[in-house]
């Protein structure tokens, strides 16, 4: 062993190995990602710039025609607006509810462990399963929500919650918030537990009220966590497909369609592949923009941390 360390040729070979090694190590992951994620992005881009038959054959180059067809679809604007309402309502509702819940769960009280487990429960059940159970619970004839309202004398006629445009979408937003709370609470709890305890003691001794401690200490300190929860939730909720698909499939009469469910129908039900590919690219660009925001936020945290 000792001799190899002074041997200049072996030493150089080892150096070269050190230089190439990281690239060999990351190569398989690059290949898999380019194959399964990169190729479809390229394919969709290509398709969005050509005329396409119902069966997916590319015809002549058509520039941005598919994109202008997409924008001309009346449902596009409708679904875009509904997606924004859905995303802002679910993310906003989630964050507004999660902060007080996390503040409570971070405090010391009787039954805290039980309460933590209960609050986290919706996270443990998949979105598909939650959607199925809620669809049955909201059933117009025999759903248990109707049963409960009936038992308390709050209802005379059965309400078909998901078959009525006025109730279906708000209910889906509420369930969206419910299933997003656990993740956000968890991140906030992690943030709260990382705060130095001494400054809160000092503030209390100096006579700061609960509100002042929140406004001038807790809130600024967990701000980075709020930012990250906002961006991550925005991306998850924007992409959220199973809940709406399972509960209403975008119906009645497209009144609960958001971009992802409409995209699925365009591609696999209506066979409008040209518009579907254009929409995929538009959504990809929206997500890319958000990823950049996230990366900037994450990097700023990194810089502040170290």
């Amino acid at each position: 062993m000792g001799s190899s360390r002074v041997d200049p040729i072996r030493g150089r070979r080892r150096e070269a190995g050190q230089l190439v090694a990281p690239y060999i190590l990351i190569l398989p992951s690059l290949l898999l990602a380019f194959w399964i994620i990169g190729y479809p992005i390229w394919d969709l881009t290509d398709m969005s710039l050509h005329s396409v038959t119902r069966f997916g054959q590319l015809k002549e180059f058509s520039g941005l025609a598919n994109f202008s067809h997409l924008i001309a679809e009346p449902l596009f604007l409708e679904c875009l607006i509904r997606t924004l309402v859905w995303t802002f309502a679910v993310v906003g509702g989630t964050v507004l509810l999660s902060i007080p819940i996390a503040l409570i769960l971070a405090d010391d009280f009787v039954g805290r462990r039980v309460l933590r487990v209960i609050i986290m429960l919706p996270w443990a059940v998949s979105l598909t399963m939650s959607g199925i159970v809620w669809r049955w619970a909201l059933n117009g004839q025999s759903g248990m929500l109707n049963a409960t309202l009936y038992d308390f004398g709050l209802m005379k006629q059965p309400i078909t919650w998901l078959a009525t445009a006025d109730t279906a979408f708000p209910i889906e937003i509420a369930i969206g918030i419910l299933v997003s709370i656990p993740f956000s609470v968890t991140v906030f709890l992690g943030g709260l537990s990382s705060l130095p305890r001494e400054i809160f003691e000092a503030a209390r001794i100096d006579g700061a009220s609960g509100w002042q401690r929140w406004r001038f200490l807790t809130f600024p300190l967990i701000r980075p966590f709020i930012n990250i929860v906002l961006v991550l939730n925005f991306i998850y909720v924007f992409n959220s497909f199973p809940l709406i698909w399972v509960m209403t499939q975008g119906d009645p009469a497209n009144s609960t369609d958001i971009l992802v469910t409409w995209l699925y129908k365009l591609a696999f039900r209506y066979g409008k592949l040209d518009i579907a590919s254009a929409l995929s690219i538009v959504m990809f660009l929206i997500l890319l923009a958000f990823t950049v925001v996230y990366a900037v936020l994450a990097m700023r945290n990194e810089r502040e941390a170290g």
Partner: protein
Amino acid sequence: MSRAGRSVVYWLILSPLVLIILFPFAVMISTAIRPRAEILVFPPVWLPKEIRLQNFVDMWQAVGFGQALVNSVIVSAGATALCLIVAIPAAYATSRMVFRGRRLFRQFLLVTQMLSPIVLVLGIFRLMVKMGLVDQLYALVLCYAAFNLAFAVWMLQAYFRTIPKELEEAAMLDGASTFQRLWMVFLPLAAPALGVTATFVFIYCWNEFVLALTLLRSNENFTLTFQIFSLVGGRYSIEWDNVMAATLLASVPVAIVFAKLQRYLVSGLALGAIK
């Protein structure tokens, strides 16, 4: 406020939320155990006249639960294994080695993490048609591994950084190759992190919906999640007792594992997101 007073106030504040969270579980149980004659009635009632556990046995047969369960295990285990095999070396490189393009690689991972399959589903479907993998479980294995790659690398590199470098340096002085260092010194130390990461990838695969909906065609290939959905989607008469029994049976094991491991996810996420 005293601790007791605080406890009462906190529980009161959160009680509406607790009720709403527990409500679907109560619905699942209440429907899964009742005889079919007591399901489609108005006004509906919470407690059935008869508790019928035979429902679970009947459901297993009627739904094809066993086959779907096997499919889900195959897909999830296969995808998790593939994902880790590819992610471990990448995470090792990004956490241990300095090389040109490391930053770029991490940003690339971030972008793939943000993409949900639904946005690319049409492109993925066309890719699988081209490769002749439609209605084959391999298609799901490949997709799930690829879409979990970023998460796995992210989690692993966060843990890998906490393993002291000295052990590997000692192994290097003893003349061990990069591969030997990774395989014999590093991985045994990283075993807990691998276990946690594998579990989360597995649960993702277990629960995944959009790709199964798009890529699977014949009943005998359906994964559990998709099989249960197919009992509800596009049918005129839905046998809700079977559906609820199946949902219950499919959710509870995952829920228990998840509840036990969730704090690891938090620390991993925190490490990955903040650092």
